[in-house]
């Protein structure tokens, strides 16, 4: 998808005034938070698990080349193939080529954020294939021609009524459905037909296991299984960082994933796919491919954003972010929203395109506090700001303001003289009202707030005056 991250401020304005979106966000809001809390309350070893998970990922990333090669060898040993894609273009070309090889017409898709990242659906359609999303949320936004607004709940911005209307329009009946049950039943009916007639199934992977060459996919709808096992060819799309050494390691991460994401102890389906069907298998694809996507990840491996590669895409940082909660995912303008997106989007789309995202955060730290992989998201956002500042980014006005303030802050005597004047002027303007409604140059503050007036003399001045009288 084409990024609109450069228009973040405009997107925010639109989102804040979109009543339907605000209602949907409000409704979804606390649910994830409460469910996660309840799940963790029943898991006293959460902190210990979190430490093990971090250690597993750090170890894997430190030896990523070895584990990826081992993974490839195991995939080949089980009869599959691994394809390496440095760029989204390469990844799209590989997928399209594999679909052609399979003689495909219809392609079913399990939910895949890497699929969104490389815009695989657009590439498939441009090449003449019919791509059908099979995760209910993804299916809904595919009908609406919209990108996902949440990494685990892609249609969270849609109300039941929105979905009923979409179905009426696209499924060609006259009356909108009213219950969630009817909506789900109708989607199931449509998707069953797609599952049974698909030639290629594309899924993402939550984890890749080096010791077995397996791809692990978790879903709550079982659509991943039907996408992977019914068609002749199964293609797994995954970022390079998804590999873990062993099944044991994957099980530690799985214990954190669903709890952090939806508050479930485990998702309804956790499936391991290893190679194509064997002679003794009852079902499964004839061909099994894994497309490993780099798209900037190997660069992150060696720089100050290394920690971001631990991300397991649970969405907890989105669910706990006050910015995400206020505007939803689309305002971020690209595939990944929320705090993790504010880090990844500038790294994948460039700071020129997404320069607002790392700045649009109060650095409140709640994302880091809930992250099961202990990713220091506020620190990563700050590091992006450092890059931006070094490259001369940001508005002239804010750079100037900051430079003038820093010049004073580095010179205590001058600072106290200048600030002393400043607060006296503000105090005089505030007078006995104790606040200012408007102040030239402070419109960003006073648009929604009064400015409480300062008292008059600074603390330090009053303190030293008293010390002069023999106190202090």
């Amino acid at each position, binding site marked *: 998808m084409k990024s609109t991250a450069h228009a973040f401020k405009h997107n925010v304005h639109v989102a804040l005034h979109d009543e339907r979106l605000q209602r949907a966000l409000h409704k979804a809001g606390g649910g994830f938070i409460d469910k996660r809390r309840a799940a963790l309350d029943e898991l006293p070893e959460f902190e210990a698990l979190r430490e093990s998970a971090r250690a597993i990922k750090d170890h894997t990333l430190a030896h990523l080349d070895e584990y990826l090669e081992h993974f490839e060898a195991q995939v080949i040993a089980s009869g599959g193939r691994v394809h390496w894609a440095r760029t989204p273009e390469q990844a799209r070309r590989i997928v399209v080529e594999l679909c052609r090889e399979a003689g495909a017409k219809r392609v079913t898709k399990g939910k895949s954020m890497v699929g969104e990242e490389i815009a695989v659906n657009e590439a498939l359609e441009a090449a003449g294939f019919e791509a059908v999303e099979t995760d209910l949320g993804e299916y809904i936004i595919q009908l609406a021609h919209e990108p996902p607004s949440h990494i685990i709940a892609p249609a969270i911005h849609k109300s039941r009524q929105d979905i009923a209307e979409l179905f009426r329009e696209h499924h060609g009946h006259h009356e909108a459905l009213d219950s969630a049950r009817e909506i789900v039943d109708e989607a199931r009916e449509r998707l069953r037909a797609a599952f049974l007639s698909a030639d290629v199934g594309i899924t993402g992977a939550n984890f890749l296991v080096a010791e077995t060459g397996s791809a692990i996919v978790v879903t709550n709808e079982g659509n991943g299984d039907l996408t992977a096992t019914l068609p002749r060819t199964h293609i797994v799309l995954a970022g390079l960082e998804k590999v873990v050494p062993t099944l044991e390691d994957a099980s530690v991460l799985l214990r954190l994933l669903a709890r952090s994401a939806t508050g479930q102890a485990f998702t309804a389906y956790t499936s391991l796919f290893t190679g194509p069907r064997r002679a003794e298998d009852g079902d499964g694809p004839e061909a099994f491919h894994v497309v490993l996507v780099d798209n900037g990840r190997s660069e992150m491996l060696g720089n100050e954003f290394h920690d971001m590669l631990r991300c397991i895409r649970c969405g907890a940082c989105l669910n706990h972010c006050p910015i995400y909660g206020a505007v939803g995912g689309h305002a971020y303008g690209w595939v990944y929203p929320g705090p993790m997106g504010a880090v990844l989007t500038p790294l994948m789309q460039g700071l020129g395109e997404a320069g607002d995202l790392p700045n649009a955060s109060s650095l409140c*730290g709640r994302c880091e506090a809930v992250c099961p992989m202990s990713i220091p998201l506020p620190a990563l956002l700050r590091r992006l700001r450092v890059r931006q500042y070094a490259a001369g980014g940001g508005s002239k006005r804010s750079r100037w303001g900051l430079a003038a303030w820093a010049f004073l802050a580095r010179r205590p005597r001058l600072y106290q003289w200048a600030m002393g004047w400043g607060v006296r002027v503000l105090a005089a303007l505030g007078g006995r009202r104790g606040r200012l409604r408007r102040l030239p140059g402070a419109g960003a503050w006073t648009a929604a707030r009064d400015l409480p007036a300062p008292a008059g003399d600074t603390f330090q001045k009053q303190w030293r005056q008293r010390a002069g009288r023999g106190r202090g």
Partner: protein
Amino acid sequence: MRVALFVTCLVDLYRPRVGFAAVNLLERAGCQVEVPVQTCCGQPAYNNGDLDDARAIARQVIRAFEGFEHVVAPSGSCAGMLKCHYPTLFEDDPAWSDRALDLAERTHELTAFLTDVLGQDDFGAHYTGQATYHDSCSSLREMKVHAQPRRLLERVDGLQLKELGDNEVCCGFGGTFCVKYPELSARMVDDKVARIHETGADTLLAADLGCLLNIAGRLRRLDSMVRVYHIAEVLADMADGPGLGEAGDQGKERP
């Protein structure tokens, strides 16, 4: 015990009474309080990617506060900067990293210092009203302060504490964030104000002046009846003057 007050730039410029309240509490708990010449902790530079200025300001603070047994700030945010972020700023600078770590070890947020280090939670204060307490993000998550201010407020005669809903959620201040993204910040402070009104409290307290200026600014704009003070003002019995942004004599402190 020789204690240096890191008064914070906002208290210094906006609300000197909070500084005097902090001194009052520390002195009554037996500390000898000094106030080294200071400007700011450097967060505006640090959070805007200007590490050179952030380091220059940090070196200035480290120098000014060397030799004191403890450094106390009436703010979780500024204390967090000294304690958590100065060591990060100098992690690759052997000449300064030890000095930064030394300051970090001696730095405390005011309410945590009073209760945990000095073992005092009753200052004999009186305040008539129902108050709710806002945890600043830095206090809560960087300084791990949660129980301490509540313990102190429980001992204030006449004060009934009402817990604030969504207390882990940011008020939308965020330093320069609030003026760089005013619409987002306004939405966040509106949510916070709604939670405050839901408690039915007549007073909002916090230990960070940044949050307080933001929330008080919004409350005053909405002509809310909720009054706003820094927790130190209540604990030191100095909450008898106008609250933040209120009309009245804004003049000098009575010694």
